[in-house]
């Protein structure tokens, strides 16, 4: 027992020392307001560690930036301290880790990418009465359980489908296309399945002129898509609507190239895989003209420009995308709530969170504000497209950096790679 308390003490004094070093004032001259601990809980190991780590970085960077700007001003400039937790992509670990950070004094939790993990943590936060801000985890169900301590910054899956059809409608009207024959693919995990099914349902409900020739699913972490792509080729669709993850997105493009599948466009109803720096780096010209309907950064935003510059500097080759962007935003929302709550009591923070109206131009969409359920009603998606191997927002027009290109002017294998 004695050993532990000494270690905690050392940790604490080291943290204080570090803060002093940064602010440049000797501790004696300034009354130090107590640190406010919040926790980032993400799946940083296991099957989805690439995204989990990107999000942990987003969380961390937001905390550092807030501290550099003087911490929580209404509380005497109290600094934030980010506790790190790893769910290992398992529910039982998610619960234990959440318990741990709550015990270590976290007044609010932020995370995780996986909806299953989010469900477990949300229930725990309900049991313990600790505010929980979901930064990315899109399954609608989580906020339909009447949780009082959970809010979500990310758009729900129904929002994705709604925007997707809005954008498709615009493209089809402008290009005078009356009907699109498409193939929908998705990864066989929670996110992929929900995203695929919601898109399919939205088309059917609105009688939208997209005919889905097939709905192909494959397991998450698949290493070979040749069979699936052969099927797609046999169906001769106009457009491919793929819901993917970083690994299979690359596999898909290469397979489409090698099997010479003719397409007018590749338009994702909303998924990772198509916008990460590694995708463009590895696929080069093959990445061009891919469109994705995602909650994206606002390219015209001042906040975005600053954050992205700092992020790319700290992590060379990386930029702010959907996940790291929302991870950053999630922490900002917490800081804003703390600022207004002037307290670290759970109920005060929660009351402030519920009243959030946080103006931001980091991500596409208006100010963050939550409905009864705790969903951010102003979260929105943008249609992005890779043009000349860089990502451009193409729709909605008010945030557009470039005009979309459709149909693809060159098939994959005509691009001289």
């Amino acid at each position, binding site marked *: 027992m004695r050993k532990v308390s000494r270690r905690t003490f050392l940790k604490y004094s080291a943290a204080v020392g570090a803060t002093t070093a940064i602010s440049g004032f000797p501790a004696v001259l300034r009354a130090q307001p107590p640190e406010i601990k919040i926790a980032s809980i993400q799946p*940083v190991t296991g099957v989805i560690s690439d995204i989990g*780590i990107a999000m942990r970085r987003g969380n961390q960077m937001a905390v550092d930036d807030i501290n550099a700007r003087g911490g929580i001003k209404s509380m005497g400039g109290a600094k934030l301290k980010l506790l790190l937790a790893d769910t290992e992509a398992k529910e039982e670990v998610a619960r234990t880790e959440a318990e741990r950070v709550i015990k270590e004094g976290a007044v609010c939790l932020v995370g995780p990418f996986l909806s299953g993990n989010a469900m477990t943590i949300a229930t725990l936060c309900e049991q313990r009465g600790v505010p929980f801000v979901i930064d990315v985890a899109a399954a609608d169900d989580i906020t339909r359980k009447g949780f009082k301590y959970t809010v979500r910054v990310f758009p729900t899956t129904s929002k994705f489908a709604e925007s997707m059809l809005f954008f498709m409608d615009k493209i089809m009207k402008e290009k005078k296309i009356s009907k699109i024959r498409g193939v929908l693919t998705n990864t066989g995990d929670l996110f992929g399945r929900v995203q695929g099914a919601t898109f399919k349902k939205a088309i059917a409900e609105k009688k939208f002129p997209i005919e889905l020739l097939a709905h192909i699913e494959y397991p998450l972490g698949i290493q070979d898509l040749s*069979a699936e792509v052969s099927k797609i080729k046999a169906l001769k669709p106009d457009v491919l609507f793929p819901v993917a993850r*970083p690994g299979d997105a690359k596999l898909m493009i290469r397979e489409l190239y090698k099997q*010479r599948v003719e397409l007018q466009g590749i338009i994702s109803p909303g998924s990772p895989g198509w916008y990460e720096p590694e995708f463009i780096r*590895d696929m080069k010209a093959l990445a061009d003209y891919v469109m994705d309907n995602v909650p994206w950064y606002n390219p015209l935003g001042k906040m975005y420009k600053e954050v992205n510059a700092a992020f790319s500097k700290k992590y060379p080759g990386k930029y702010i995308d959907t996940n790291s962007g929302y991870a950053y935003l999630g922490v900002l929302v917490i800081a804003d709530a703390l600022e207004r709550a002037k307290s670290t009591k759970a109920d005060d923070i929660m009351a402030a969170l519920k009243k959030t109206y946080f103006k931001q131009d980091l991500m596409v969409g208006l100010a963050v504000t939550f409905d009864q359920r705790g969903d951010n009603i102003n979260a929105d998606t943008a249609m992005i497209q890779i043009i000349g191997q860089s990502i451009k927002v193409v729709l909605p027009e008010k945030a557009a950096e470039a005009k979309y290109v459709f149909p693809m002017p060159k098939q994959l294998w005509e691009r001289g790679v």
Partner: protein
Amino acid sequence: MNLNLILQLALSGFLMGGVYSLIALGLSLIFGVMRVINFAHGEMMVWGMYVAYTLLLWTGLDPFFSFSVSAVTLFILGYLLQRTVVNQILDFPEAMQVLPLVGMAMVFENSARLVWGPDYISPQSRFALSSHSIGFLTIDTPRLIAFSLAVIFTILVLLFLKKTDLGKSIRAAADNRLGASLVGTDVNKIYAICFGIGTACVGTAGGLLVPIMPLSPHIGAPFTLISFIIVILGGMGSLTGAMVGGLIIGVAESVGPTLLTNLFQGIGLELEFPQTMKQVVSFFILIVIMILRPQGLFGGKRG
């Protein structure tokens, strides 16, 4: 029924099966000689992939050449692993032998994450995007090359075991451990070399797969399971069995779901056998084989 599609699926499955064979050969060799299942097999394959990738990054050497470096690296790794860990557990109860290798699998996966980062990588290699069309069939060049090299490597390993003195003593040690040590063979050294060859096989396969699939630290585990299936299917300890088993599983997983869907619809069932359930085909084949012919397709009486 779309015959072209079925043929296309069969072809790509067959080519992939060649690589599966090589992975399974490594597992089979280790199991045949030491009676230990290498639960870190898939994770070691990922290391083979990263070695080839790193060489491509530093020197621009194509993975279809640098797989030999993967093989050597993984041989050394396997040799050391056998000497430090596996050799200590040979006489443990079967269930006990699982643990250290599961632990090593964790070590391999997560150290790869620490060294190379978590992101998916699919490097641009020379043949990554090339393919040929013959009639309605598309032949994927990297798969064809990987297949050919895997088959060549497999044959070389078989020749080594059949023709060289070292290979003969490995086989002798497999048959009778006590006997081999009585004759004066250094059994421990033989075992370490054998384990090294087993992991070199999987390292080679890893190198060959770099142009075919994106690599990330966690992708290894399914390969352990699939090679396990292949080994039992082909016959425990039978190296020919591992080869043929790999091809069978490759084709079955690729063609199975589509064929079954056609079959369902043929008998008037509106049922689709989804691609996501393709492993069910392999497991089903495995169960049937184990029940009807437990020694596997090519296994001798010994089982």
